[in-house]
Every structure is written in structure tokens, then in C-alpha cells.
């Protein structure tokens, strides 16, 4: 019995503690009679999400669809453009030396501050939000991929060059498989950043989406609706992260990685 309990604890620590956190939250809010607009209970937030409310119609489907399409599209664009540029840069060592330091430098800046400029250029709407999500997740993707493509053992390269391997062969057989791990860690970072970017875009430049709904609910002091949005956004972020982990397991079965997150 004790062994089973300890096994359950080992495997399910995150869900168990999170559930405990929710229970404490629920009891604290009910017990201390906290006003709903200050802090709603988790149950009330879920109720706002799944039950029709008498005083407000949230159009959940519309907002979730808008945010989900922004996150999905920006993630795909980031992956394609990010990996594409990393491959181009890693192809030539001059380009590598010239661009990678620039990317690393820009990555250390608060890129999200460009959001109002992007809004100015493209106006309100889904494209602006996709672009904001893209611009904040692009740099980690490029840097991770390029690092992986370059982190190859020099001895191995010497060996295959001695055997007359072409640049293309080296790329496909050595650099790419070597970089998979790095690419996937980039994808995981992007999975969160794309959600963050889409939400920030919706905060400042949108009339649909969960980020818009959050800001709108802030005006109407509808705190339970904000928490309902937070639940959906968290599920979105975690699902995308889980999806990437799943694909990683399929693509790299030899790597038995611990699922963290």
C-alpha cells in the first residue's frame, strides 16, 4: 500500500499538488468570504466557462477560435521561418559569424516592446497578432536550431570529409540528426511564447480573442471571466507543449526523455 502511494506521488506530483492548490483556493475564498470580483473560486471560473451566464454572453467559441488560430498559425510560421533561416545561416560559416551574434543580441532585448510599431504598420486584426507572436518566438527558434546545427564534433566532420562526404550529406546525415534535440527544445520554448505573443497582441490590438476578452472583462470588473480565460489559455499552452513533446517522442524514439512541464 505504501509503495503504491509513493509511486503515485512520484508520478503524479504536479497534478496532485495542483489539485491541492485548487482545493485550498476554493476553501479559502469561501471561508474568508472574499468578494467574487476580487477573487472568484475556481469552480465559479469553470462555471463561467461552461454554463450560460444570465448577465453576459461571452461568445467563447468565437474568442477561443480566434486565439487558437493565431497561436497555431504563428507557431507554424515561426517553425518554418525559424528553422529555414537557421539552416541558411548554418550553411556558411561567414553568415554564421555575422548573424548569430546579432540574433543572440536581439534575443536579449525586450522584443515585445515592438508590438505598438507592428500595430501601427498592420492595423488591428489577426495578422498583427500573428506577427507579434512570431517576432517574440522567432529568435529562440533560430538560435536553438543554429546552435544544434553547429554543435557537431569536429573529429566526426574530419572523418567524413576524409571519406569525401559532400556538404549536403554532412548536413542530412550529421548536422540535422544532431540538432533535433536543440530544435525540439526551441519548439517547446516557442509553444509558450506563441501563446504569450498572441495574447499580448490581443491585449493591445484586437476585437476578438481571449486576450481581448480579458481586457474587456477588466473594464467590466468581471473577474470570474478573466479566470475562465486564464484556464483556457493555460490549457492551450500546455497542449501545444504536450503536442511538441509527443512529436519529439515519435521522431526521436531513441531519446527517452523525462517529460518535464
Amino acid at each position, binding site marked *: 500500500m505504501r509503495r503504491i502511494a509513493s509511486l503515485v*506521488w512520484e508520478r503524479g*506530483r*504536479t497534478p496532485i*499538488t*495542483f489539485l*491541492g*492548490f485548487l482545493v485550498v483556493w476554493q476553501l479559502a475564498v469561501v471561508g474568508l468570504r472574499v468578494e467574487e*470580483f*476580487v477573487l472568484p473560486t475556481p469552480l465559479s471560473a469553470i462555471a463561467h466557462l461552461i454554463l450560460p451566464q444570465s448577465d453576459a454572453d461571452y461568445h467563447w467559441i468565437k474568442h477561443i477560435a480566434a486565439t487558437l488560430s493565431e497561436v497555431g498559425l504563428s507557431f507554424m510560421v515561426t517553425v518554418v521561418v525559424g528553422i529555414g533561416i537557421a539552416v541558411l545561416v548554418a550553411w556558411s560559416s561567414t553568415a554564421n*559569424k*555575422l548573424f548569430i*551574434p*546579432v540574433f*543572440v*543580441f536581439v*534575443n*536579449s*532585448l*525586450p522584443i*515585445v*516592446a*515592438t*508590438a*505598438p*510599431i507592428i*500595430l*501601427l*504598420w498592420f492595423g488591428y486584426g489577426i495578422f498583427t497578432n500573428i506577427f507579434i507572436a512570431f517576432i517574440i518566438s522567432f529568435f529562440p527558434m533560430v538560435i536553438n536550431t543554429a546552435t544544434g546545427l553547429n554543435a557537431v564534433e569536429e573529429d566526426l566532420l574530419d572523418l567524413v570529409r576524409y571519406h569525401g562526404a559532400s556538404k549536403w550529406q554532412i548536413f542530412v546525415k550529421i548536422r540535422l540528426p544532431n540538432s533535433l534535440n536543440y530544435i525540439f527544445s526551441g519548439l517547446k520554448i516557442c509553444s*509558450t511564447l506563441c*501563446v*504569450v505573443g498572441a*495574447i*499580448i497582441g490581443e*491585449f*493591445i490590438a484586437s476585437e476578438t480573442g*481571449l*486576450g481581448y476578452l*480579458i*481586457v474587456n*472583462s*477588466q473594464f467590466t*470588473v468581471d*473577474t470570474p471571466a*478573466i479566470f475562465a*480565460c*486564464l484556464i483556457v*489559455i*493555460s490549457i492551450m*499552452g*500546455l497542449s501545444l*507543449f504536450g503536442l511538441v513533446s509527443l512529436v519529439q517522442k515519435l521522431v526521436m524514439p531513441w531519446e527517452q526523455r523525462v517529460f*518535464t*512541464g
Partner: protein
Amino acid sequence: MRQLKTYMTRVRTFIANHYLKVLQVVGFFILWQIIAMLIDKVFIIPSPLAVFSALFDPELAAQYKWIEHIVTTLTEIALGFALSAGVGVLIAVTISWSKLLRDIFMPLLVFFNSIPKIAMAPLFLIWFGYGIIPNALIAILIGFFPVVINSATGLNEVDEDLLDLVNYLHATKLQVFTKIRLPNALPYIFSGLKISTTFCVVGAIIGEFIAAERGLGYLLMDSQALIDTPPMFAGLIVISILALGLFGLISVFEGILMPWQKSSTAAI
């Protein structure tokens, strides 16, 4: 004559070491100027010159109230970062003190770190109203987690053999902590602090985007509404300098506290 020669060699090695960076910076501004001249619409992209005059021309600078906005944002960032660092390290120390606390709180912290917390920003406006406090709290909201997770990791990743040895020698828990765990955690703490610097800047700016009457984020949104691009680009430069300055400050501290470790200021 000889001095001049050593001076010249020094200049030469400096150029040899840094010419690429100088080239990149100069190239960036030239490229920007050319693009601005080609597009030739100030409401799309201002020239570098227009941006610098928005910053330094006394009349324009007074109109944009740079000092007021910079002081506001800087206060938010400083408050947010100081509290993220202080509370983050303190909580990390507390939870790494006992295995039970660690087992309960680490999964929660890692979980909350992986969700998009910035979506909670508008809540802080409901709770605390407009102003410096909510924006500093938003900075803490996203700047706190890297510090606590990195510090806790560093405090726990200690060589088991070393612990066995000092336990055998009857070291107290406090001794183990100050002589082994803390020095071992320093690199982790500093890498957490460095991540946190950028996060705090981002948090403060996003808070100002959503709701503020002062600060660089407010200036950016306000100028966006007025389609006045020079202060937007100037604001971007100022924000970047603030972020790099804070990052550099932490690197300096790192160098002082851990002289044995070559500071990894690769980003700059």
C-alpha cells in the same frame, strides 16, 4: 614614441577583436537610414536622425517628457526586479531547506512557470488600480519564476559524495548550506537573475501597454495612436538600453561575487 607604439598595438588589437561588432552596429544604422530614405514615409519608418532628434532635441524631448516616462518605467523595473530577486531567492532557500516543502512546491512552481502568466496582467489592474504598483507587480509576476526555479535547482544540485563526506565529518545543516549549497547555487542564481532582468522589463512595459498614464510603454501606445513614429523607435532604443544596463549590472555583480568564474556576458 614607444608609448605611442604600444598604444597603436592596443588600438589594433581592439579593432581586430571588435571590428565585427562595430561593423554590425554601423551597418545596422546605415541600412536603417537607406530603408527609411527608400520608403520615405515617416509614419511607417522614421530615419535614425529623426529618432535621435526626438530624443535629444530639447524642444521635442520636453514635449515627449522623456525624463518622466523613463523614471516611471525604471522605478517599476527596479521595484519588480528587486522583489523578484529577493523573494525568489528567499523562497528557493526556504523550500530547499526541507524535502517535503520542495516536493510540494517545486512542481507547482514549475507548472506555473510553464503557463502564459502574462495573461494575468489585467487582474492586477482590477486589484491595484492604475500606476506604478500594478506594473511593478506584473514585472514580478513574470520575473519571479526564473529566479526561484534556477536558485532552487542550484541549491539542490550538490554532489552527493560531498554531502556524505561532510555529514561524516558532522557538518551542521547551516554549515552545509553556507559552505556547499550556496556557493554551488551562485551560478544558477545569477543565470536566473539575468533571465529575470529581461522579464521584468517586459512585464513593466506590458503593464504600461494595457493601462498607464506614464512610462515608456504608455508613450509607445500613445504615439501609436497619434501615428508619431520617431518617439516609438526612440522609446524602443531607451527600453533596450534599460534592459541591457540591468543585465550588465548583474553581470558586474556576478564578476565581483564569483571572480573564479568567467562571467558569461555572451549576450553583449
